[in-house]
């Protein structure tokens, strides 16, 4: 700000405050309980803020967006996540989506696949095909992408602990279609650190699991150059109950951990950094979210350029996908969820997202019905084509409040980075339960605020309706579990089991020698080894992870 005006502004501010009046009996704080002042002014901006902190879109530090023209140049990708039941059924849904003009697919896997448990494992009981598609072997993956030319779509796979196995299967399907790996494009979620912190779908301990992530980053940078091998995710951290600052800080700390691990492997930062992508939650507190997205871009750009010495400007860019907050949806008066999702989507758009998934109103219970999915997609289209919010780049930039909140988010994240460093880094922090406890504390604090109505959720703890509105719910046929198990048995009977055995053995050996696992996984899945078997072969070397201290 311009210093000669400062005294005058201060005077006017004091004058304004004298006649301010009294607040209603309410706590004015964000959903993360950051207290918000009644008014922001140039006094809240940092010195020299504009060029160093705010600047121009497409320019360092990218607070206002990673591209010069942002959504005037290209709209965000409206990428809706889909997958349920069997590979056959999901394949039909994919064909439908592509006929509707989509070019991007996003695969949701069921819990057994996410946990690398085969469909016939007793632990999978009741969960096969429930919350996503069941994939056991390459045979399922072939069905999933049958009739879909993999050189003409981009595919996002929400998969973590067994990410390399599914990635290898995707490459193998490409081979069968005659599509070479360098023509494949897409994204693996493959962010194992946030599993220990929040989503809790893990197999082995963090150390060796991060090695597997590095394997896929290294492999993709050499052989599958159009692939984003990891999508560093705050989404699940937030869903688990974190504050916005915790989501920001823990996710970026995870990102740094992957970068460090790649550098330790001997890779050059610019060889992989441009392919790192992020995945954020867009929660209900509008300005806090916008500030979070802007702060995230700025912190990452500074880290990549100044801490890691990346020379390629593409390494500085934080490209990210956003999903509206599932946790903000309510069971009560579910149609209200359409409104919540619309506001959250708007925050993501104004925060400069590259792609967006809008939740459907019925997702509190189950996978969405087709009707609900359609409304969710239409919400994005209304924002893009009717509201005019895309007419100018970063319309909220320069708002005293938004800029000040952006700074505050950055400061909060930096404080956490210091704490994490004191703990010895992200992995020791996980082992000591630091993140888990911070998140549990925040979740408990928020629940207490709801219980004493310090915070209001419409239809839940205030404005409650007597009657609950029932909306249709997608039912998953329990028959899917039986047929998937039967199909898996057929695959096991038809394949060359000696070959599978040998390739799994080679994989275990390679992993113990600390070789890159990807080529060996690829060999194993080509022989129709299952997700469970391949994972087991690696787990025999890496061991199992036991959840650390609770509370």
């Amino acid at each position, binding site marked *: 700000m311009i210093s000669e005006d400062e005294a005058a502004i201060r005077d006017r501010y004091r004058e304004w405050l004298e006649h301010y009046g009294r607040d209603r009996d309410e706590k004015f704080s964000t959903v993360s309980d950051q207290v918000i002042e009644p008014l922001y002014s140039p006094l809240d901006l940092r010195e020299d803020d504009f060029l160093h902190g705010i600047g121009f879109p497409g320019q360092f530090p990218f607070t206002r967006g990673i591209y010069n023209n942002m959504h005037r140049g290209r709209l965000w990708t409206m990428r809706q996540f889909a997958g349920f039941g069997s590979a056959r059924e999901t394949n039909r849904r994919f064909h439908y989506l592509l006929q509707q003009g989509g070019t991007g697919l996003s695969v949701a896997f069921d819990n057994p696949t996410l946990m690398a448990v085969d469909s016939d494992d007793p632990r999978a009981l009741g969960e096969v095909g429930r919350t996503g598609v069941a994939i056991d072997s390459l045979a399922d993956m072939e069905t999933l992408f049958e009739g879909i030319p993999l050189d003409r779509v981009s595919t996002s796979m929400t998969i973590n602990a067994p990410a390399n196995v599914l990635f290898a299967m995707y490459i193998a399907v490409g081979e069968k279609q005659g599509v070479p790996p360098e023509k494949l494009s897409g994204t693996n979620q493959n962010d194992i650190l946030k599993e220990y912190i929040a989503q809790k779908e893990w197999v082995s*301990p963090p150390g060796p699991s991060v090695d597997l992530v590095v394997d896929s980053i290294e492999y993709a940078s050499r052989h599958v150059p159009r692939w984003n091998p990891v999508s560093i995710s705050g989404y699940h951290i937030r869903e688990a109950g974190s504050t916005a600052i915790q989501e920001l800080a823990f996710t970026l700390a995870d990102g740094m951990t992957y970068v460090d691990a790649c550098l330790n492997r001997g890779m050059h930062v610019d060889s992989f950094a441009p392919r790192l992508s992020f995945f954020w939650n867009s929660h209900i507190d509008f300005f806090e979210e916008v500030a979070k997205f802007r702060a995230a871009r700025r912190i990452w750009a500074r880290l990549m350029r100044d801490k890691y010495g990346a020379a390629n400007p593409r390494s500085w860019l934080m490209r990210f996908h956003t999903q509206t907050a599932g946790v903000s949806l309510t069971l009560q008066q579910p149609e209200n969820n359409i409104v919540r999702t619309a506001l959250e989507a708007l925050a993501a758009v104004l925060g400069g997202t590259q792609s967006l998934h809008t939740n459907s109103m019925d997702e509190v219970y189950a996978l969405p019905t087709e009707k609900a999915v359609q409304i969710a997609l239409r919400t994005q289209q209304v924002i893009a084509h009717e509201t005019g919010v895309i007419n100018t780049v970063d319309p909220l930039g320069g708002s005293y409040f938004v800029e000040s909140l952006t700074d505050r988010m950055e400061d909060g994240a930096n404080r956490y980075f210091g704490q994490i460093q004191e703990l010895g880094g992200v992995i020791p922090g996980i*082992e*000591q339960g630091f993140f888990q406890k911070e998140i549990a504390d925040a979740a408990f604090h928020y629940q207490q605020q709801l219980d004493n109505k310090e915070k209001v959720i419409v239809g839940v703890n205030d404005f409650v309706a007597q009657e609950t509105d029932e909306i249709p719910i997608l039912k998953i046929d329990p028959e899917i579990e039986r047929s998937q198990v039967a199909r898996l048995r057929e695959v096991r009977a038809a394949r060359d089991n000696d070959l599978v055995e040998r390739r799994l053995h080679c994989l275990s050996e390679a992993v113990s020698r600390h070789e890159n696992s990807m080529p060996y996984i690829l060999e194993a899945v080509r022989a129709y080894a299952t997700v469970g078997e391949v994972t087991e072969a690696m787990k025999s070397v890496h*061991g199992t992870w*036991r*959840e650390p*201290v*609770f*509370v």
Partner: protein
Amino acid sequence: MAIAAASQNLVDGILAGSHRAAAKAISLIENDERASEQLIRRLYPQTGNAYTVGLTGPPGAGKSTLVDDIAQIARGDGESVGIIAVDPNSPFSGGAILGDRIRMMRHTVDPDVFIRSMGSRGHLGGLAVATSQARDVLDALGMGYVILETVGVGQSELEVAELADTTVVVLMPGLGDSVQTIKAGIMEIADIFVINKADHPALARTAADLRELLRLDPRQRAWTPPIVKTVATNEDGVHELWQAILKHRRFLEEKGGLKERRRRRLERQVVEIAARRLREEVLVPSTEASGFRRAVQAVTDRRLDPYAAADQLMEEGAKRVAAGS
């Protein structure tokens, strides 16, 4: 009589190996002193076969994971294992979140492992008595080893550790010079030291500090506590720990120390029970007599000193005992 019949049913169940009966018996011990006395009287002749290992140390040292690993190895040797994991209750609400089990869930469905979580507060007869009796239940259930896991912070947890035949004190490197700050009491009860999380950079210093502390110990020891380094999360060093426990057991058995240890422990227990009864059945009722109130008034007025008043109270108590009250 209902209590007696119920106790007998539980005892029969426990001797038949029923986890349900053992679990109910432990609840009785935790909740109902009178009923548990009946139970222990019936059960006691069937105990004395289990070997008890105590594991204590500061919060966060990885005790539960170590217990889980020890159980795994003991099972591999064909031993059955009972585990009692004591966690502190909230001083505010009296409630607790008992989470030690989380690390041991792989043993939950094994019929030869029995795991019980206990809150440290609210035991009328004291935590040590309740734990000791719960230990007896698992002993009678046929468990070859009973492991008592406690947080080594308070006096009552120390008493629990003293119930063990072999006491393992778990430390970890780094955190606030844990060796310097351990209570003298813990040093004295340790038969084996474990430095867990031995992959920590401060390991060497902690181990050196501990060795120095042991060297400076003026007492003559027939058994020098070994220092075992473990990384419980990888099961590193856990076999060595198990071997150390077995070695200590052999040492005690061969030198007659085990019998002596147990005799001293039972002696303490009997004295404790008697002292408690004296207090509750003799002293406390005696304070209700009018003579005691007068004596206290006299002490208040400085006409009598506290010792003389105590003598009077003892006399009153002795009269009650003589009258067979």
